[in-house]
């Protein structure tokens, strides 16, 4: 998740550049460099990574062109792009999933990130009980999403949940209690609220870390020049936070695309598939409907979406490393 900051491959003024070369010669002289020397260290990781991550992903793309039940006893039949045609033209749930995934990503890069930033800015001040505040905001982030889903499901309980009680006490609605999770229009947002609760504290910690890199002298001198809080934030703090903002955004996008547990635990994608997302729909098609072709076609769409969103960041971060060093 960090920026690619490999100093050896970046443009450098002559002096620091010549030093690695010296080392390279030294390394080569003793004969400890090169791919062969690195293999014993690299091989286990590469093997695990290729067998359990890369190969299954390539396989997913391949299987999206086949019709298959997922049972080893059944044959895999090549059908070309038929699964995609079915997905795009005959599967309304697919489009619901796309829509919900987009909603989720967009809301995520706005709400939990700004909330985390505000929390961090507030808690960057010396305050009584600062550590307690930080812990309470952060703890939801270490809980299993499936546990969080169950906690929130209970809070949304139409009869005895917190929200129902609040609505009854304040006489909001018709008095029948809140039914967020069984309302197709609202369900996805109700689950999203749990996501915000869980992830805002993580963003807060990242922003707090980033705030340590904001020069205190710069803030002080801006204050002496008569800048108000907003001007200091806008012109000193925010520019210094830019790398953190990018990392938080990327992490948030990655988290949003793979949201799965929360939805399984709270709505199971329902009611009437209204809260489906791509990650869960792929699983549902493959494992519950036993249609591995369609399921992997959804997975391939998910892969492509991820690459579109993430590759620019990777390129930017490698380039960024070049610019800075």
């Amino acid at each position, binding site marked *: 998740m960090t920026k690619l900051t490999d100093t050896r491959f970046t443009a450098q003024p002559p002096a620091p550049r010549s030093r690695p070369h010296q080392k390279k010669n030294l390394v080569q002289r003793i004969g400890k460099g090169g791919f062969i020397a690195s293999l014993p260290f690299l091989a*286990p990781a590469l093997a695990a990574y290729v067998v359990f991550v890369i190969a299954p992903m390539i396989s*997913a793309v391949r299987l999206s062109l086949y019709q298959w039940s997922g049972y080893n006893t059944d044959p895999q039949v090549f059908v070309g792009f038929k699964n995609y045609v079915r997905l795009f033209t005959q599967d309304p749930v697919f489009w619901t999933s796309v829509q919900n995934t987009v909603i989720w990503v967009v809301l995520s890069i706005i709400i939990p990130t700004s909330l985390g930033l505000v929390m961090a800015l507030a808690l960057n001040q010396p305050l009584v009980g600062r550590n307690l505040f930080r812990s309470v905001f952060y703890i939801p982030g270490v809980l299993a999403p499936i546990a969080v889903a169950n906690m929130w499901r209970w809070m949304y309980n139409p009869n005895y949940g917190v929200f129902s009680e609040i609505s009854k006490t304040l006489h909001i609605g018709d008095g029948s209690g809140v039914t967020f999770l069984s309302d197709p229009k609202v369900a996805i947002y109700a689950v999203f609220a749990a996501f915000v609760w869980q992830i805002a504290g993580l963003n807060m910690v990242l922003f707090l870390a980033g705030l340590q890199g904001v020069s205190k002298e710069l803030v002080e001198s801006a204050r002496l020049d008569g800048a108000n809080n907003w001007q200091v934030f806008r012109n000193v703090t925010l520019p210094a936070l830019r790398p953190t903002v990018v990392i938080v955004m990327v992490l948030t996008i990655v988290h949003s695309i793979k949201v799965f547990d929360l939805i399984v635990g709270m709505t199971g994608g329902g009611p009437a598939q209204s809260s489906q997302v791509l990650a869960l729909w792929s699983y549902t098609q*493959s494992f519950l409907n036993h249609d591995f072709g369609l399921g992997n076609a959804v997975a391939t769409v998910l892969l492509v979406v991820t690459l579109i969103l993430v590759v620019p960041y990777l390129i930017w971060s490698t380039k960024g490393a070049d610019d800075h060093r």
Partner: protein
Amino acid sequence: MSTATLPRTRSRSRVQAPKNPRDYVRIGLWIALAIVMVIWAMPMVFVFLTSIKSEADIFSTSSFAIPGAPEWQNYAEALATGNLMTAGGNSLLIALVKVPVGLFIAAAAAFALSRIRFKYDTLILGAFALGSMVPIQVALGPLFKTILDMGLLNNPLGVILPYIGFGLPMQVFILHGFFTQVPKEIDESVRVDGGGNLRLFLQFILPLSKPALAALFILDFVATWNEYAIALVILQNKASQTVPLAIQSFQSQFTSSYGPLNAFTIMSILPVLIIYLLFQRYFVQGMFTGAVKG
């Protein structure tokens, strides 16, 4: 008069410790934070309170009413009817194997990528970086087939191996960032003394990286403990369940026994909470190393 006094107070507040106006802002900020904290703590408090209420109390009293006599029976019932002990054992075993092994493999790879010079190291690092961002669900179907073909369905090893694979990218990346900060002079002195890569790795780089490794260990332990999607596909019988699977099956089995249900949730998150409280600083440190320094 006002024109004469105003500049004075201003210059004073600038030089000396800030007095009244800023204190009020701070108090306001503190109150706002306290309100948000209450909202943030509410789900936990509500779930805990439900977990110690009798059924009658749940149905008749207010959500945040504290029960007269705590109904610990809920916990006993959740333990007796749920699969928490078996699942807890499984989760512990999986995490205690996966985390050290995975971390060691990741460290070795990060060592090779940061300390041994060869042609395609940036490319490999980039491939790892990319892998840390692709959702697990993309690979779920084929992964199931791989594990099935290996005969590891319902076997702890069937999740340990993919967990290692999926944990690697992030760890390699973070450790690579950390290792590159270790001075290169160490390499030279080890090599001049006739030591090889193995000695450099085991006796110098690893010990020097203890803080990063400790932080990653804690973070990875929690992540492994919480993992759901892969476990859902690979561990299909009750005997092999991990804690997240046990939570979900308890939830679907006992939909309306709210007391035991919430007791189950509380017990399932307890280990992670304890780890957080014990190793708090590592969480922050891990995020620091991972996100900012790198």
